[in-house]
């Protein structure tokens, strides 16, 4: 029931916000804030209850489960469940949700009711994606995220917003349809094999699929997730969407929407198509490495701060896909860590870009410079997150990238060697960010105020989190462990089975 509450609180909040928006400009933001805070507290409550210290330790991977029949004639049910992986991502969703509301506090002045409606609706979709255990329901939530985001970019974005919104919509929608086809394919193959037509995740994972069909079905899922993640060369919607979206939009895009792609791979692609995944591992990892390097090189040349940060995301997400296809515990734990820490560090950089834009009315880093003088606090925080982005030990991102590289090294040393060049490139672009914005002579003589209390609060929350994750990452690792070890064990069993039945792959 708790799981349903997580989604309903957001949806009810969304409707309340749009209604309240008719009467007042300021009420919707309070409603949105309250909805997100309630959700965050619920997640923390679930976490506390299911952690080893909290008493009721579930025996398996799954912590909570909720199931209700929805369209029984097609085998569709409203089935939500969370394991450690989902829980972490849900916590991230609501945490970033709170920050997204706070950072929109003064930035959004028009149509606030509808704005917060969209914001909360996206969050509801994301939360649903992280919990849905019915493929039809999953697809439903996948689409729920999409349309409000389209509005968010298209209405509250900056100059080129309409183009960016269309591009985002078409990329996501087209790839989403491929996934839907794959879901249907899986549904019918499973139905023909067993006579049971169902969208239930737990039943579909056991489907025995001929290798060739498995490959095509996997591709359907993979393309949807690869576009979202994004994997090179499907990344080109990202800089436009990030660049034009309002601050909260960029925050949610980078922090949550990209993560749904990685989540989808971990939750669906790997367990459903184990052999195909093994076959595709090396090409996928190579694409990941290309993304790491390409994103970093692209980031170096950008002059628009938000586009720059968007390309760093491409680079960081390259680590994610490389790690996923290493298929061992070290790398997968690194991936989970990377999802969380990248959301925080890149989110912080986007927030900072928004704050600078409010002050200087530009995103062009050529027009910034020397801002450390008037804004030492923002400078220090900016430095922290630039360092997080380049993977400085002591901050969360290091744990993530270290584990991924270490895990990948066990599987394919040469891929790690290539990926490690990302450590150098990330230093190059991160220092360029700091140098161009905060160091050097002042370009403008306007007075720019340092952090306001609200901004300080947002950035302090992020800074504390990223440092905490860098020094004490174990709680996150422990939370994700059952899900990850289960996945690794499953893959091992599969490959053992494969050795006994070589005819499967034909």
């Amino acid at each position, binding site marked *: 029931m708790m799981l349903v509450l997580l989604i309903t609180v957001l949806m009810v909040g969304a409707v309340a916000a749009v209604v309240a928006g008719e009467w007042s400009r300021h009420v919707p933001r309070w409603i949105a804030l309250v909805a997100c805070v309630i959700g965050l507290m619920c997640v923390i409550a679930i976490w506390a209850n299911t952690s080893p210290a909290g008493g009721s330790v579930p025996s398996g991977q799954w912590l909570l489960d909720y199931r209700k029949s929805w369209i029984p004639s097609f085998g569709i049910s409203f089935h939500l469940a969370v394991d450690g992986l989902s829980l972490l991502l849900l916590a991230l969703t609501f945490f970033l949700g709170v920050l997204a509301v706070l950072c929109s506090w003064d930035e959004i002045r028009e149509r606030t009711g509808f704005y917060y409606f969209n914001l909360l609706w996206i969050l509801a979709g994301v939360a649903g994606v992280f919990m849905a255990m019915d493929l039809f329901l999953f697809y439903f939530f996948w689409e729920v995220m999409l349309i409000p985001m389209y509005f968010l970019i298209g209405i509250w974005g900056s100059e080129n917003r309409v183009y960016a919104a269309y*591009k985002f919509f078409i*990329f996501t929608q087209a790839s989403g349809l491929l996934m839907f086809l794959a879901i249907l394919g899986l549904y019918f193959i499973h139905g023909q094999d067993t006579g049971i037509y169902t969208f239930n995740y737990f039943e579909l994972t056991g489907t025995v699929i001929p290798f060739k069909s498995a490959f095509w079905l996997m591709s359907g899922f993979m393309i949807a997730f690869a576009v979202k993640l994004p994997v090179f060369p499907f990344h080109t919607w990202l800089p436009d969407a990030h660049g034009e979206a309002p601050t909260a939009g960029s925050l949610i895009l980078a922090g949550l929407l990209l993560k749904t792609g990685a989540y989808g791979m971990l939750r669906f692609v790997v367990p459903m198509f184990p052999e195909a995944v093994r076959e595709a591992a090396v090409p996928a990892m190579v694409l990941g490495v290309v993304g790491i390097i390409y994103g970093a090189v692209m980031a*170096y040349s950008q002059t628009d701060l938000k586009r720059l940060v968007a390309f760093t995301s491409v680079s960081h997400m390259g680590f994610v896909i490389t790690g996923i296809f290493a298929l061992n515990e*070290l790398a997968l734990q690194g991936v989970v860590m990377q999802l969380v820490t990248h959301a925080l560090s890149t989110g912080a950089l986007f927030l900072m870009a928004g704050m600078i834009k409010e002050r200087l009315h530009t995103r062009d880093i050529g027009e910034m410079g020397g801002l450390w*003088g008037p804004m030492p606090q923002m400078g220090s925080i900016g430095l922290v997150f630039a360092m997080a982005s380049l993977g400085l030990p*002591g901050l969360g991102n*290091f744990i993530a990238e270290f584990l991924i590289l270490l895990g990948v090294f066990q599987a394919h040393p040469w891929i790690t060697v290539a990926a*490690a060049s990302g450590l150098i490139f990330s230093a190059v672009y991160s220092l360029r960010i700091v140098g161009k914005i905060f*160091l050097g002579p002042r370009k403008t003589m306007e007075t720019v105020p340092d952090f306001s209390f609200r901004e300080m609060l947002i950035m302090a929350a992020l800074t504390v989190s990223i440092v905490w994750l860098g*020094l004490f990452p174990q709680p996150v690792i422990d939370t994700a462990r059952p899900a990850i070890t289960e996945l690794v064990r499953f893959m091992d069993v599969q490959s053992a089975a494969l050795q006994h039945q070589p005819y499967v792959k034909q």
Partner: protein
Amino acid sequence: MDKFLWLIPALPLGGFLILAFAGKYISRKAVAIVGAGSICLSALVMFAVGGAFLSGMPENAVYTQTLWTWFEVGDFNAKITLSLDALSLVFVFAITFIGALIHIYSTAFMEADRDYARFFASMNLFVFSMLVLVLADNLLLMYLGWEGVGLCSYLLIGFWYEQPANGAAARKAFTVTRIGDAAMAIGLFMVFQQAGTLVVSEIGANASAIWQPNSTSVTITALLLLAGGLGKSAQLPLQTWLPDAMAGPSPVSALIHAATMVTAGVYLVARMHTIFALSETARLVVAVIGAATLLLAGLTALTQYDIKRVLAYSTISQIGYMFLALGVGAWTAAVFHFMIHAFFKALLFLAAGAIIESLHHEHNMFKMGGLKDKMPVVFWTFLAGAISLAAVPLVSAGFYSKDQILWYSWSAGGGNAVLWAVALAGALITAAYTTRMMILTFWGESHTPIGHLPGRRMTMPLVVLALFSVFAGFIELPHNFGHFTLFSDLLHPVLPETFMKENIPSEWLFQLLAALATLGGIFLGYYYYYQKPSRIENLRRNGLVVQLHRFWFSGWAFDALYDRMLVKPFIYISSINKKDITDKLYTGIAAITGDMYKLLSRTQSGSLRWYIMGLVAGAILILGIQIML
């Protein structure tokens, strides 16, 4: 006492945190007290813990303290564990003791600076990172300190951030060392894959069981770790960042060159000596890089005008000696030279800082001159540092440490005549450029009027360091006279004895030659810059000499080479693709769709005749097909 170990790094960290969060709100005096006080307290704790360690040597010769488990995944686990053995004690001593002196000096040196608190915050963090680096019991925690050092060098080299050149120097330092760090990270992965652990003592204990001697894997592992060391220690081919690093305030240079950062590579190789011991190739590479670097940097130092650049290149050169010693297997000699070098190099940089400040930020030695009588304290202390750098026989600490290395570069297991000859030539060059620097700065006519003289907070550290630069050498005397081996005895539980070749010539001969090289170098400097300065003018007319001078002056054109080979191509590739070529794929699809739409929409012209003609043509086509089939 071992339960207080954590305090040694924690105090500087505390200082950093206080200054970072409250630095704006407290008085400058309080900033100075917190900033310098934290390091002084840390040094005191070090003396207490170190004293207890030395008096009652623990059973396995090491203090360890586990603070918490950093993270644990599968069979990998990393703990935040500090461990103190004789090797780390030497480094901790140098870092905290010299660091404390540098901090005291800085309270006066930086007094007029706007960002007093930011300066001390960064300095404290620097000391903290370096302490973590040397106290870490596993390679991952060491890597944390290692990268922290890189960050702090970035912050401090670019301390005066408004000048773009300083920012560029800071970026360069971080990026160049990061190249080494990336290689080192791969080295860590290799170590873990083969040894299943990153704990240094476990690797050391099982190294010979894990790796075949001289196998490819051990050589590669050693070389990858070495690459990290080369970056931080500014050795060939990653030495280019260090000369630019003097863009930071002088105390920062003193800290980077003496107590922290550049010595990290020496520490790493010494710490991982079990791996290097298994690979002859790797050791040879270390020795050759050390020898090449010491020669190259020495010749470069000979041509510089800027006093801090001379010192910077001399650091590269002296670290080259340490690498040479490590490479030939003279582990303790390398660490001994590290310690002595830390004293005199900190001294030289602090004294140079005092001179530069008194001369209104004049860096050029040719515009100094005549300071001998005007700044007596600085002169005498600088002289003490200079004789130690030049290794003046018997009376300087530098002689005892460098003489050992010269001797071992021939006689130790990995030594040979070529390495020795290079090292000897380096000794001559060192003496020559040191003499040149002394004469240009302190003798001759005064070219720049001096401002105020340094106060007591600045001179006191100079005097202390001068005493150590002269007398610290006596704790380790050569085998043939005195044979007093306090320092190497201390280190032998950690570092192996130096393996000697058989049938080697008498050590006396080597000492005599080393002394002659030093004196010869001093004479050369004296002759060309004091007695017959006209000879220099004659040399300037020689085209070849001018070319050579220009080449050496530029640091053997490494900057230009890297700029052309790496930096420019990277920027070029990056900038031509600013608009992202892959996007053309999608805009192309969109354009084709648009064109097709236009093409088809032409058919919808609204003209009835066209429509009827289309109908008729279609009907004929279908009928035709049917008839044909």
